[in-house]
């Protein structure tokens, strides 16, 4: 910034202070004379700012694009293909029926080498975990501690059964995702590790180790997955992941990790239990396998945005320079002051 012009607060106040010495309250603050730095938008400063934004942003953008590029991602949409063609358009009947065979076998090809850990996500589209009725339908107290078992006020309409309160109560838990995936590579089962997929802090502080599922999915409408009654909530990692509600209607949730490397062109067979109903609202279900980079998962947005911003600000800088050269305008031109008709202000 242009620090060349600091306020000349040093000479005048001291003189004034002597003059008005009978006024005890005198201070630079009360006289509004605190020394101040008064930057102005000079050509140099503005152009430098834009150039430096360009210079900083373009490398960052390139780096992040590069990082995103190195992430290997397999996305497989299976909701449609996992409905037998006999059901045709009546997907809803298929998914809601308890009789049908929900098993579905998919084959995925690894496009490039994938270094472990390989993250397994399921992706739901058009699923509003952020809906107001949904997002608040939980009881953090109940999840945290056995003592608050009856604290189900916010959980309607999934709060109580005849036999007592539902644990965990609320729509979120009730609609827990229940598709399962089994992976195998050349007929060898790939172990899916669920270790560390939930936040440690959630397991430790938000989901009690003394809270066990109770009356869950036991009566009335059955929503999603059922929970093993003998495992405390703090270890129900799938539930914990699900309960971290997503802010967007399209989201991915961690299903597990594969701890071995996958080579290019390998074929993975996935056995999917296609239980979860997204058909009623036309939501998509996708299975995602992805590696990670120092910048997170595959997301080109940051890289592209950085490159664009960097490019644009270089462009701005250049056009300001050109403008300055073509049409130089000295700052603080007194001829613009009082003796022209101020066209720019007359409306």
């Amino acid at each position, binding site marked *: 910034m242009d620090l060349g012009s600091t306020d000349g607060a040093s000479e005048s106040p001291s003189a004034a202070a002597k003059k008005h010495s009978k006024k005890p309250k005198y201070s630079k603050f009360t006289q*509004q004379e605190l020394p101040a730095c008064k930057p102005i938008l000079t050509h140099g400063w503005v152009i430098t700012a834009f150039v430096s934004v360009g210079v900083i942003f373009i490398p960052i953008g390139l780096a992040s694009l590069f990082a995103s590029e190195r992430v290997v991602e397999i996305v497989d949409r299976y909701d449609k293909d996992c409905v037998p063609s006999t059901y045709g358009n009546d997907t809803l009947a298929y998914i809601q029926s308890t009789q049908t065979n929900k098993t579905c076998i998919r084959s995925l090809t690894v496009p490039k080498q994938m270094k472990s850990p390989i993250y397994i996500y399921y992706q739901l589209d058009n699923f509003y975990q952020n*809906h107001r009725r949904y997002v608040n339908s939980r009881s953090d107290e109940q999840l945290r501690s056995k003592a608050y078992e009856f604290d189900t006020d916010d959980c309607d309409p999934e709060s109580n059964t005849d036999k007592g309160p539902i644990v965990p109560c609320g729509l979120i838990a009730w609609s827990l995702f229940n598709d399962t995936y089994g992976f195998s590579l050349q007929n060898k089962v790939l172990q899916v590790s669920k270790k560390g997929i939930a936040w440690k802090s959630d397991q430790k502080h938000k989901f009690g180790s003394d809270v066990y599922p109770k009356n869950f999915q036991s009566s009335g409408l059955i929503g999603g997955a059922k929970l093993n009654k003998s495992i405390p909530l703090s270890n129900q990692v799938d539930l914990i992941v699900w309960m971290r509600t997503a802010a967007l209607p399209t*989201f991915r949730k961690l299903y597990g990790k594969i701890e071995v490397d996958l080579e290019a062109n390998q074929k993975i067979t996935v056995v999917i239990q296609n239980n979860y109903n997204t058909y009623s609202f036309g939501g998509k279900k996708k299975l995602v396998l992805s590696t990670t980079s120092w910048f997170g998962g595959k997301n080109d947005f940051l890289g592209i945005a950085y490159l664009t911003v960097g490019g644009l600000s270089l462009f701005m800088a250049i056009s300001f320079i050109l403008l300055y050269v073509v049409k130089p305008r000295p700052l*603080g031109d*007194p001829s613009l002051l009082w*003796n022209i008709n101020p066209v720019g202000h007359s409306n």
Partner: protein
Amino acid sequence: MSAMKRYIYINDDELSQNLYCDNRISNKKYTILNFLPKNLWEQFSRFMNQYFLLIACLQLWSLITPVNPATTWGPLIIIFAISATKEAWDDYNRYLSDKKANEKDVWVVKQGIKKHIQAQDIRVGNIVWLRENVEVPCDLVLIGTSDPQGLCYVETAALDGETDLKTRVIPSACVGIDFELLHKIKGVIECPNPDKDIRRLDANLRLFPPFIDNDVCSLTIKNTILQSCYLRNTEWACGVAVYTGNETKLGMSRGVPEPKLTAVDATIDKLTGAIFIFQIVVVIVLGIAGNVWKDTEARKQWYVQYPNEVSWHELLVIPLRFELLCSIMIPISVKVSLDLVKSLYAKFIDWDSEMIDLETGTPALAANTAISEDLGQVEYIMTDKTGTLTENRMIFKRCCISGRFYGNESGDALKDVELVNAVASGSPDVIRFLTVMAICNTVIPIRSKSGSISYKAQSQDEEALVRAAACLHMVFVNKSADILEINLNGAIVQFDVLDTLEFTSDRKRMSVVVKDCKSGKIVLLSKGADEALLPCAHTGQQMRTFAEAVEQYAQLGLRTLCLAWRELEEDEYREWSLTFRDANSSLVDREWRVAEVCQRLEHDFEILGVAAIEDRLQDGVPETIKALRQAGINFWMLTGDKQNTAVQIALSCNFVSPEPKGQLLLINGKTEDEVCSSLEKVLLTMRTTNSEPKDVAFAIDGWALEIALKHYKKAITELALLSRTAICCRVTPSQKAQLVELVKSCDYKTLAIGDGGNDVRMIQEADIGVGISGREGLQAARAADYSIGKFRFLKRLILVHGRYSYNRTAFLSQYSFYKSLLICFIQIFFSFISGISGTSLFNSVSLMAYNVFYTSIPVLVSVLDKDLSETTVMQHPQILFYCQAGRLLNPSTFAGWFGRSLFHAIVVFVITIRVYAFERSDMEEMSMVALSGCIWLQAFVVALETNSFTVLQHLAIWGNLAGFYFINWIVSAFPSLGMHTIMFRLCRQRCYWATMLLIVAVGMGPVLALKYFRYTYRPSKINILQQAERLGGPILSLGNIEPQPRLLEKDVTPSSGTQPKNRNPIYEPLLSDSSNATGRSFGSGTPFDFFQSQSRLSSSYYRNCKDT
């Protein structure tokens, strides 16, 4: 009639004991019991508070509330608590000071015995005894003093601010009552019900036998001593309590003045209303969309479990939810922030060491802390002349005695040898002239111990005359009771004052009737304005010399007083004296009747001569007026003085400047027709010349003004708008107020400045009242919103304080809306991806903290911001134009801020949801990312809009950013607070910081580019001055740049369109023409022309801008 009176039985413990209130003074607004309800009621009478209360109540309905009710209740309760605490504290202080006054010990006669009681126990009818230098506890009617003549002296500074001593006298009925008998006195006082007129008391006293006869004796304000006065120079005095407690004159005049609303406040209110409407529209649209979405989509979303059958009121749930979600659009903090900064503006005025009057050590004082911004928007200044523009330090300079001019050569009559010789030789005319000078007044001579005499006078003119007479060996030495002593060349002459016909602004003269103790002759001495006295002269006398003298003196800018006298016949006087006494004791219309009776005596005067008194201009007045006129402010001078004097003063202080550029038009006339034709002529000239680079002013006298205001209001209003300068002479206080109202009614911001009691009404009427704490007492200063020591501080008050205040408030209020809209837009966008169900992206803690801490603190330091240095502003007063025209806060600037908040909301929202998509889309994380984005942006917005960074600003802006993280780390550490560990996680993510950087770059880049482009290629005057000031160089020459006349001509013409350029025949100066009507020649006969300053230009475009 009887309902209007109270009868007070003196010293009668039974009869009047409980009829009237006791003397407990109470300025308290609240009691402990009613504090809460009353205070809450007062606070809730404001629209904004009602709105917030409604929102807070809606939030208690858990079905619709998107966030915790604490988000509104918290700030609401804090705001209310702050206001209530302030009120309670003020009230407590009032209680303490009341208590102190109430518990003072006083001597009172009870059951015939003098007792020491507390002041609060005084009852109406009690006889109260006072000692010297004691404060008067309630309004008393005097019945006895230590002075054998029944005189006492009081200082009324606390009441009316006048520091001189006033004489008070016991009523005639009580004269001669023995000291011992005083506390046995019985009687009845008939007086009006309590009022607040401290200059008037129309009452009667009747003492019961055995005291004197049973006659009714009239009482005036002269016979009273009022609460809060001090008894001086009198050993003791005693009086009957007539008004007590809060019913005293002082208590009644204490009132809560109507709160003034600044133009900025009004704009903010309007903008708030606009935002409110916008909010309602958003709510309706989203509410409908939400309901539609619910019925089409949400039913398919099985996991939401919408019940199939719903009652009709379910339809309201979504709109109400959005109403709550959008309620933050109207920032709850804006009122508190504004109150806070406004009181700081006022403090800056109080603290300003450059506005301390060094002579008296009076600092400037902002009594009204709420209207500083208006100072920056002043368009008309109505100024008093005497004491405001001038020093009000009168010095006798010249005189004309029976046709002879004294002091014309030397400029000082006291040094004029001829006059000194004339006095020495005892020329009868001169002696009579001097006698009137010395004793026709209400001055009290006070002899100090060293033998020198000082004078205590209510009027500066009188003091000047008495002093001058003393210099000419006519020394007014003593006044005891009604006997005056004059030392003339060593010989003592005594006069008995029979009656005093007091000065009123209507009569414009005062007279005394005295009896020469030696010869026994009764003489009426009179002095007054020429037009009040000259018509009363006896028919034979030649008036021409006096009229000429008056003319000549007035042209020199001197104040003139005519002195006159008449010998009275004994019978005539006796007869008149009866009617006078009668009029004086009348309860109805006393003032008018007295004036009427006085008129009967004041005729057939022999005019003795004319005295001219100089009242020097205050320091810096011409410069101040010049600068403020350059700033585009129109000046009107409203004075009680006569036209020529006023015009001369106007000339000498840059109000007016002689030939050849301007024109002074005169409106006068004695009848309706004359005034009408004169007015029309002037108007015609005004209309035609308004397009030309020429300043036209008009002068009007009180008489014509009265007619014009009554019959030609439309014409005078048009005139007022056309003319930048006006001189109104001979106007009464109420006319002053009327004129202020006239200009105010045309939607101009008016500032009235004055120093005396006659300016009080005008000061109260104007948008901003400024009082000069001058020699005429503090009355004006007390009624005013601002009081300053000298006129020249007005420049600093307006240009520096007013301008800064306006700029700062403009920024602060718009910024407050910006930041609220920013977060609200994000919520609205979020609702589109959350099924239009009214989910709040942000949690309750963040929302509350956003408004209360994160965004309030940085903007509060904008009270220290200065766009231009004080010196620059003072050098270029034209820059005030931006404030006057409301350039920095109006719908279009507000639209800019609105657009900016929309743009920033889009930036934050889009970047956040794109970066935090898929596996990152955890709601808690994302809301914190969006919130941090807002905080970062607002820090940079404040930084970009700040013109000068002091340490405090850096601390508040960047410290606040750090504080945001600090607070959120703390909040993140608590598992129960909903955002457990979120901030720690985010701070570890590279892509979080990358997002912040991106948001700042995308959000600020265009803003910066646009600002730079405007700043460089479409600079406003402020920008140019900033550049000049900070880059140095040309600034030095800037101050001296004068506009080229050629350019002026060119520039003004286009704005005025079709006006013919060549002069209209009516362009004849009207002055000489119309002055014939009054038979007065106006100086050399040439019209006055006004200096064509560059301000003319600024005002012309400024008006154009205002119109478009």
